[in-house]
């Protein structure tokens, strides 16, 4: 494995963490959005807020990590992506601002009117942000980002594949969130909420599966390189993802609780790494290879050191945070 490939793997690892934890946070916002009126939606919204509050900021930092590794290790890819897809990227950034502010303000506002406005801001932007991020990923996979940048600002992402991937991002986040919330509700001894999110986890799993299937067709017509590799070199990962998804459905339908979270995470992780395998050796299929975009070796070495330090310091700290949160020591 070359240094550039290793740096790309670190980039993907960051993206995986963001998809799992950040994705679940966005999903929480999705369920908040469709929870219904203030009275009916009160309990699910409380459950969501309780499990999101202590962790969402730390989860958000994975996005910064991905951006920083991208512009440091693969600066030309960063520039090509940002000069082409600036419209969905700017919309995602707008969503991030509205979402963070809406969530933080809602917690501290007393009046119902203000709370509802902030809550709506948080919830709507929780859906729009992952959608636009998905279109960015879809446009890259479809090969719509030229290596030299300045691709078309609109036709690069307003295509079936990017839009489908956008919808898939929303559905996947909702699916992860529902699965995590089943566990949280169970821990809180709230059986009603447990059932509530269980039903939604099932629904989201089916929706995400259907979108993935549709995505496969779009991949076939719009991103042939990625499709071909996904169905050959990437096939084992796709199969594991399908198995995880199927097993999760069985576990849910039988009313069992274990191992819900690992299965949900497994289904998502394998898709992300399947995508990595399918794109390889391209960062921007099929115009920019990983080695072409790579920064000089000493920069890569620094990225490795930073990643090692992150693994040594950040992961245990995150573990501590999640443990404290899961034991209800934070509120």
């Amino acid at each position, binding site marked *: 494995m070359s240094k550039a490939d290793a740096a790309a793997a670190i980039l993907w690892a960051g993206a995986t963490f963001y998809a799992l934890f950040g994705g679940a946070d966005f999903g929480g916002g999705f369920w908040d959005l469709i929870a219904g009126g203030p009275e009916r939606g009160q309990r699910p919204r409380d459950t969501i807020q309780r499990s999101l509050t202590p962790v969402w900021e730390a989860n958000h*930092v994975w996005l910064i990590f991905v951006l*920083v590794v991208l512009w440091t290790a693969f600066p030309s890819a960063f520039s090509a992506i940002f000069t082409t897809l600036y419209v969905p990227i700017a919309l995602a950034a707008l969503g991030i*601002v509205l979402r963070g502010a809406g969530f933080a303000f809602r917690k501290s506002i007393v009046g119902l009117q203000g709370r509802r406005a902030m809550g709506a801001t948080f919830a709507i932007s929780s859906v729009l942000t992952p959608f636009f991020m998905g279109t960015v990923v879809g446009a890259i996979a479809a090969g719509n980002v030229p290596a030299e940048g300045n691709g078309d600002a609109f036709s690069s992402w307003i295509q079936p594949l990017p839009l489908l991937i956008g919808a898939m991002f929303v559905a996947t986040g909702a699916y992860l969130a529902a699965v995590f919330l089943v566990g949280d509700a169970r821990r809180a001894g709230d059986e009603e909420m447990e059932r509530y999110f269980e039903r939604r986890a099932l629904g989201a799993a089916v929706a995400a599966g259907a979108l993935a299937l549709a995505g496969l067709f779009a991949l076939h017509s719009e991103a042939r390189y990625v499709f071909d590799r996904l169905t050959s070199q990437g096939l084992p990962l796709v199969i594991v993802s399908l198995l995880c998804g199927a097993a999760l459905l069985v576990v849910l339908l039988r009313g069992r609780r274990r191992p819900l979270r690992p299965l949900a995470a497994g289904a998502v992780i394998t898709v992300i790494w399947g995508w990595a395998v399918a794109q390889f050796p391209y960062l921007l299929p099929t115009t920019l290879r990983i080695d072409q975009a790579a*920064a000089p070796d000493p920069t890569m070495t620094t990225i490795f050191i930073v990643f090692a330090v992150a693994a040594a310091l950040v992961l245990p700290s995150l573990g501590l945070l999640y443990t404290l949160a899961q034991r209800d020591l934070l509120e």
Partner: protein
Amino acid sequence: MLPFDPLPLAASASNLLAAREQMAFTLGFHIVLSCLGVALPATILVANYIGLKKGDEAALELAKRWSKAMALTFAVGAVTGTVLSFEFGLLWPHFMDRFGAAFGVAFAIEGIFFFIEAIFLAIYIYGWKRLGGWAHFWSGMPMVITGIGGAFSVVAANSWMNQPQGFTLDATGKVVDVEPVQVLLNPATGYEAPHMILAAYMVVGFLVASIYAVGMLKGRRDRLHRLGLLIPLTIGLIATPIQLFVGDTAAREVADHQPAKFAAMECIQESGDHQTEYVGGICTSDGVKAAIGIPDLDSYLVGFSADTKVIGLNDIPDDERPPANTMLHLAFDAMVGIGTALLALGAWTAVVWWKRRDIPRTPWFLRIVAVTGAASILALWCGWIVTEVGRQPWIVQGYMRTSEAVTDAEGIWFSFGLVLLLYAALGTGAVLVLRSMSRRWREQGAEDVQSPYAPQREEEPA
């Protein structure tokens, strides 16, 4: 969007201006919140420590309130910081394309610090009820260290733009080799990073103190307000003399290594010795108008002798001179003036405190403290104007012009307008929420001023 570009040059110049304005505005907004992220944890922990050590309920209550306010400002700061990372690509893609490999490492390190700070901030602010007193106190300590570390590394990236080094370019201008340590420890980091970290402590110290000064002026003279004034004010006043020393050193370094910036901020037109130091005034190509001039002082400040030669704008090529010299000069003067006034405030406070262990009795003392918060933020902005506008037309001094770095995408004025509206709402929202929190605390009054650790104190060995 027109199918053709009728005025290509004008359009791109306008794009550059829009991008610079948007960057300046979003950075100016974020920098205040990042000061809170850097220095508020230490301020809170001082109150927390006093509270635990002396069993002082008012100090504990302050720590608890400030940490709740910090939960909000940190959340807003996290999103405005994210916007800045997006803007690197949205506004300055060619800068990142060419130099990301060189100076990006500084951001990678900053990312780690920020990550750890976000984690322990969550543990600290949400751990008041269930974590034991001292365990909770120590859970806040990583925030102090990571706040300083994060500020150091992100300012190192900015310092590198002022004094770039640690990279090799090939014939096409591509970065082919990097020495990350040289990048991080470029000569400007040595004075810029401490200057910014101290600025953060001053902004937070004076800002928090000014809030309690207003409360005391309204007649709230309880122990909570006294401590709420004294703890942050002490921090700000201790940071001030160190800051003036660091700033003085920084100005000399700028004179040595970035002569164009120095000449512009001091309005020096002609190179030579025996340079006059101008205070205030308007910079024109034939000298400074309406300023107070102190003969020889500028030369003396740069080299401790009136014979020190200082480079003037006449030795800088026309197309490498910073714009808006009067604004730069006044911004620099305002920063130094505010710093000096705060030093005088510190001297006054220290003398009175030494004599009778109390703050000065006159209401003028509280009135002055009440404006130090706004004044220190103004000084902070002025400092960034000097360093950023003073580096123009360069984005990387001597290597890349800002005009080469800017995006070719259209509609930056539109996005800038949108950002203005969005941030106006964000700022208003944050202030309104903070005020409503403060009102709620006042209404709850005395019965809420109980030990934040109350239910656990007996059960858990702290």
